[in-house]
């Protein structure tokens, strides 16, 4: 996306993350059962957001299946991006949004996603300074990564249904490292 043309609004879709240090940029996303973790370092003036839906069921870290590794990967990409821009792990603070329990999905996948994010942040010692998870309605979320301000609007029932249907399409794979098999190791 051309950020200049988009007028300092950067939209994030499922499987993506963005790190920003421009105070005028607002990150936005639309969440049904998905979860967005918004992290920032208030001292370094840098923040970011990711947006994920764990594939299959991820009950807890202890289960540590492929779904958990995928979620951990997306959290790690965001954290690494922040650290690269001068953030320090011990100063990071987080806000967590999403994980709606929608009637359409007949499952607690949203709850599992929110629980995963909270558990990950707790295990990593990252302070959660705000959260809004669960409920029956999806959310439109805006996050100003430098100030840490967040604003959410509830989606209507129909919008929530549409969002959940979109989320349930095949999961976009997490960004893969361009590891080149042609390099000889032995």
């Amino acid at each position, binding site marked *: 996306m051309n950020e200049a043309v988009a007028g300092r609004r950067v939209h994030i879709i499922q499987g993506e993350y963005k790190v920003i240090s421009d105070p005028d940029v607002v990150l936005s996303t639309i969440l049904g059962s998905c979860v967005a973790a918004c992290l920032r370092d208030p001292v370094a003036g840098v923040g970011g957001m990711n947006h994920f839906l764990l594939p299959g069921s991820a009950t807890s*870290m202890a289960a*540590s299946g*492929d779904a*958990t*590794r*995928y979620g*951990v*990967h997306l*959290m*790690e*990409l965001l*954290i*690494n991006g922040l*650290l690269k821009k001068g953030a320090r*792990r011990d100063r990071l603070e987080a806000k967590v949004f999403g994980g709606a329990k929608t009637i359409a999905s007949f499952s607690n996948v949203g709850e599992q996603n929110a629980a995963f994010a909270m558990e*990950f942040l707790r*295990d*990593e*010692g990252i302070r959660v300074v705000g959260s809004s998870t669960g409920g029956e309605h999806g959310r439109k979320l805006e996050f100003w990564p430098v100030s840490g301000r967040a604003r959410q609007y509830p989606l209507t029932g129909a919008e929530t249904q549409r969002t959940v249907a979109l989320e349930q399409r095949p999961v976009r794979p*997490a*960004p*893969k*490292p*361009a*590891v*080149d098999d042609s*390099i*000889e*190791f*032995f």
Partner: protein
Amino acid sequence: MSLAEKIKVLIVDDQVTSRLLLSDALTQLGFKQITAAGDGVQGMKIMSEQPHHLVISDFNMPNMDGLGFLQAVRTNPSTKKAAFIILTAQGDRALVQKAAQLGANNVLAKPFTIEKMKAAIEAVFGALK
């Protein structure tokens, strides 16, 4: 005793969660001797006190990153023979090339599956069972 049980593994990652996932995956593959460290400095301290056969290390870490750690392992006579697999969440060709130049035995991309981890280790040690 299987090969996996004999191999002493050191996992190095700054994320607590990643260390747990790595340790869990290794346990599922039959490894029993697993030690963990949070960065290259801590990893090197453990390696100098008690050399391990296999090091699985993240690339992005504070204090001493994965490549710095690899270099330190390869230049210390008591640790230089250890097998070294570097993990990368956002690798690029330059990083992989640099790791190969510095003497990494393999690279494993995150998020990894148990099968990919097994394949990466077996490429270095041969069949685990």
